[in-house]
């Protein structure tokens, strides 16, 4: 452990640390552009120069290993002059367009120039112009502003695993570009916008639409997948202007997927802003009273067993709890939150990502069963790639072919391959056997199928057989795609005694055994079966569910309510109200609470606090925000016949998986351009 003196402060740093990191530990700020703690060291911006005693020249601290006895000055005359000189050189070719630059106000170059830069330039010649590059529908470029830190290139290579960005030319002619200016095909590409320390890479949808200081910044949680990425929603007035990641080391680190970042224009389109009631086969605008009355009159005299409810993929905990209570009050057992038909049942350990996302970094072997994490949970995939890059991590895969951005050993295609692996008929079994902390990820492609319960049981058998579950390690993981799923399972939104699951409800609706179906934001269903039933759709967007609805109750989207979601690890996280829902739309649990009163089944809560007390009473862990409670290992899954069909990921189109993303024009553009390019590159048509 080397000991250094930084500006008179003695610090001891771990072996292998750099002088830069030592300065940070000593609490001294060193200006920098190219250095980023999550990327490889490049040492090419030269901004972090410090004076090291006995060194003949100022030293780039980010690339200098800390050695015992070093005496470092970060703000000596020599260091200051060096830093000022570098900044003056960087500014030579940087345009003075801060007043019209989107980065203005949150720009590293602006900030560092203010504190470390010279007061004027001695450069009287012409600045070097650089042609802007096309990088796709998400990233806009102003390459004249680029200072060649190569953070974006390193991000694409290292974190995103898509080697498409590069620096062509040399010296003054160096330019950052994609090959032949193709769109970047990574699902994490938007992060280069945050990484860019200047205004060279900007968000295309957000471009020129607001200034950072006009925005109100709200901390929130993403619901595009089950990861529960921490986000910051920037709002002007009542309009969401952009979405940025928020640091959470255990969930999304500081990245978010492109869908999370750019979906927000979908919040402004196809919104349900008032209740609608179908009369004579046609939806007519109504008010809340009229819509509720229509439901009451239709429900009058209908047997409880003919009523059913399905919770959608983005339903929040509060709304689902209210829905469950309402169905309970009505006496209906037909309730399900597993919209995709995933055969989840039994103990809690059987539907959680038990290893936790950060825990992936401790694993030393991985088996993917019917999972395609790149599109099902992009940040889980980024974590797997991070672990893979550390070395000593073999990844086997059963089913769901495609480029995951890291190499995998193909073990097979369907359930039979899992059985073979268990029988010792595949060499990957030895890898799992030798591993000390192996893990398995069972994806929706393995569970949302008729033999899902049997596959789950088989995966459980594999976890036990390969020693994935010990006292201090649980390597069994279920990967969800729905933000609501774990919350719904934790609340017990599954069919009650003699109740029907999603498939049963749809079948019943077709045959007339189910007369009334309540869809809580459920759009990813085969809605053809619902045409005969009386459908109440509560949700934010006019999508598949609203199309078959007889009564539409306008709800709030995820940015418009203070609500709780439980991510795939079982981590409850709460969003804040960032903008008000449009028109007459209301917070979802309030709609259910109001409806309960109209139906003479008044639910016993009037405030969010009362509702949350009701939620945490049976399950206190749901009230412990941002805390994970490990689930004890117990029985789940069911023995049964395994199908021969290969596992297929349910996500055929990453950019359009929910009502919001389907309403988004930006996501639409991504589908056309990026997806098209990916398919061309791989030559596949899946």
């Amino acid at each position, binding site marked *: 452990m080397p000991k250094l003196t930084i500006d008179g402060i003695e610090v001891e740093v771990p072996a292998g640390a750099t002088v830069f990191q030592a300065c940070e530990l000593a609490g001294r700020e060193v200006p920098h552009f190219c250095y980023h703690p999550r990327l490889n060291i490049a040492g090419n911006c030269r901004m972090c120069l410090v004076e090291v005693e006995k060194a003949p020249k100022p030293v780039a601290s980010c690339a200098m290993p800390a050695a015992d006895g070093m005496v470092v000055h970060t703000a000596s005359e020599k260091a200051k002059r060096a830093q000022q000189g570098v900044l003056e050189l960087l500014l030579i070719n940087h345009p003075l367009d801060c007043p019209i630059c989107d980065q203005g106000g949150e720009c590293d170059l602006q900030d560092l120039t203010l504190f470390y830069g010279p007061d004027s330039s001695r450069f009287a010649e012409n600045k070097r112009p650089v042609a802007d590059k096309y990088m796709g529908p998400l990233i806009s470029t102003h390459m004249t502003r680029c200072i060649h830190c190569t953070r974006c290139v390193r991000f694409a290579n290292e974190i995103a695993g898509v080697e498409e960005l590069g620096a*062509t030319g040399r010296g003054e002619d160096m330019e950052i570009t994609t090959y032949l200016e193709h769109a970047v095909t990574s699902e994490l590409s938007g992060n280069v916008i945050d990484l860019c320390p200047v205004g060279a890479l900007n968000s295309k949808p957000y471009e020129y639409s607001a200034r950072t200081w006009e925005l109100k910044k709200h901390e929130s949680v993403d619901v595009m997948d089950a990861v529960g990425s921490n986000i910051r929603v920037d709002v002007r007035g009542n309009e969401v202007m952009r979405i940025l990641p928020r640091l959470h080391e255990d969930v999304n680190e500081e990245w978010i997927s492109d869908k999370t970042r750019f979906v927000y224009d979908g919040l402004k389109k196809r919104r349900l802003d008032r209740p609608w009631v179908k009369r004579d086969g046609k939806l007519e605008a109504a008010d809340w009273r009229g819509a509720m009355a229509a439901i009451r009159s239709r429900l009058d005299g209908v047997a409880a067993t003919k009523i059913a409810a399905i919770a959608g993929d983005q339903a929040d905990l509060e709304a689902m709890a209210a829905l469950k209570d309402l169905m309970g009050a009505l006496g209906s057992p037909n309730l399900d939150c597993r919209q995709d038909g995933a055969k989840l049942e039994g103990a809690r350990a059987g539907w959680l990502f038990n290893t936790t996302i950060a825990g992936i970094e401790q694993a030393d072997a991985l088996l993917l069963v019917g999972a395609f994490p790149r599109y099902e949970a992009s940040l889980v995939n980024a974590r797997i790639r991070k672990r893979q890059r550390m070395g000593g991590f073999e990844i086997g895969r059963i089913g769901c072919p495609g480029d995951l951005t890291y190499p995998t050993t193909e073990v097979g295609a369907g359930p039979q391959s899992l059985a073979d692996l268990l029988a010792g008929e595949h060499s990957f079994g030895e890898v799992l056997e030798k591993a000390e902390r192996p893990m398995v990820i069972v994806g929706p492609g393995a569970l949302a199928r008729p033999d899902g319960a049997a596959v789950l049981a088989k995966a459980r058998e594999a976890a036990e057989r390969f020693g994935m579950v010990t006292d201090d390690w649980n390597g069994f993981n279920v990967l969800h795609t729905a933000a609501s799923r774990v919350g719904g399972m934790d609340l017990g939104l599954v069919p009650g005694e003699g109740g029907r699951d999603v498939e049963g409800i749809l079948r019943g609706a077709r045959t007339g055994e189910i007369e009334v179906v309540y869809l809580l934001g459920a759009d990813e269903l085969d809605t053809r079966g619902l045409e005969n039933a009386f459908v109440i759709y509560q949700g934010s967007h006019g999508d598949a569910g609203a199309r078959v609805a007889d009564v539409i109750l306008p709800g709030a989207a995820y940015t418009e309510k203070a609500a709780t979601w439980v991510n795939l690890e079982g981590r409850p996280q709460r969003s804040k109200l960032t903008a008000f829902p449009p028109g007459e739309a209301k917070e979802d649990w309030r709609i259910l609470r109001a409806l309960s009163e109209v139906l003479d089944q008044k639910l016993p809560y009037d405030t969010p606090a009362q509702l949350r007390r009701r939620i945490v009473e049976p399950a206190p862990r749901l009230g412990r925000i941002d805390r994970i409670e490990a689930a004890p290992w117990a029985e789940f899954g069911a023995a049964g016949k395994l199908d021969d069909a290969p596992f297929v990921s349910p996500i055929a189109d990453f950019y359009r998986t929910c009502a919001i993303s389907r309403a988004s024009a930006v996501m639409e553009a991504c589908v056309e351009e990026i997806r098209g390019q990916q398919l061309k590159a791989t030559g596949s048509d899946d």
Partner: protein
Amino acid sequence: MSLSPDVESFAFTPENEERARAHIAKYPEGRQASAVLPLLHLAQAQHGGWLPQAAIEYVAAFLEMPKIRVEEVASFYDMFNTGPTARCQVRICTTTPCWLCGSDDIVAAVEAALGCKVGENTADGRFYLREFECLGACANAPMMWIDDDYYEDLTPERATAVIEALKRGERPAPGPQSGRQGAIPFGGKTTLLEV
């Protein structure tokens, strides 16, 4: 930089493919990308002195490298041309030692002899003239590099003579055009007299 898509396809000749495999064999398994420079040189030589987009993509596929990585390399080094050039490449060093010894005059003389400016091809499409940074022959400055050969100790007259000979289809003897051997002093040896 932009790549030239004019050429539809590119593939090594059997001889060059064999040479390429020999280059790759010099590096450990899985490190075949290390051979990118010799392979680009092979491709450029085969294609008449420049690398079309098709050649860059061919080399990328040959070495299982992302295309952008090969483009980076090809655009970084001045020795690779990414746009169409004439077959005979005349590069005159104009870095400080050559410049002090009169490389400006050499450039003027060669421009006059070829009838084109620096950065251009001649009208007959045989020669491509360009300036170059230091080629490491400072002891024999000024100098120029034509295809694979150095022509050193130039004066405007000697440079013109070399170009005229090339225009006639001859290959003048490379090396110092002053008649001295290598870089020994003009007045003969001053050290190591016994050797």
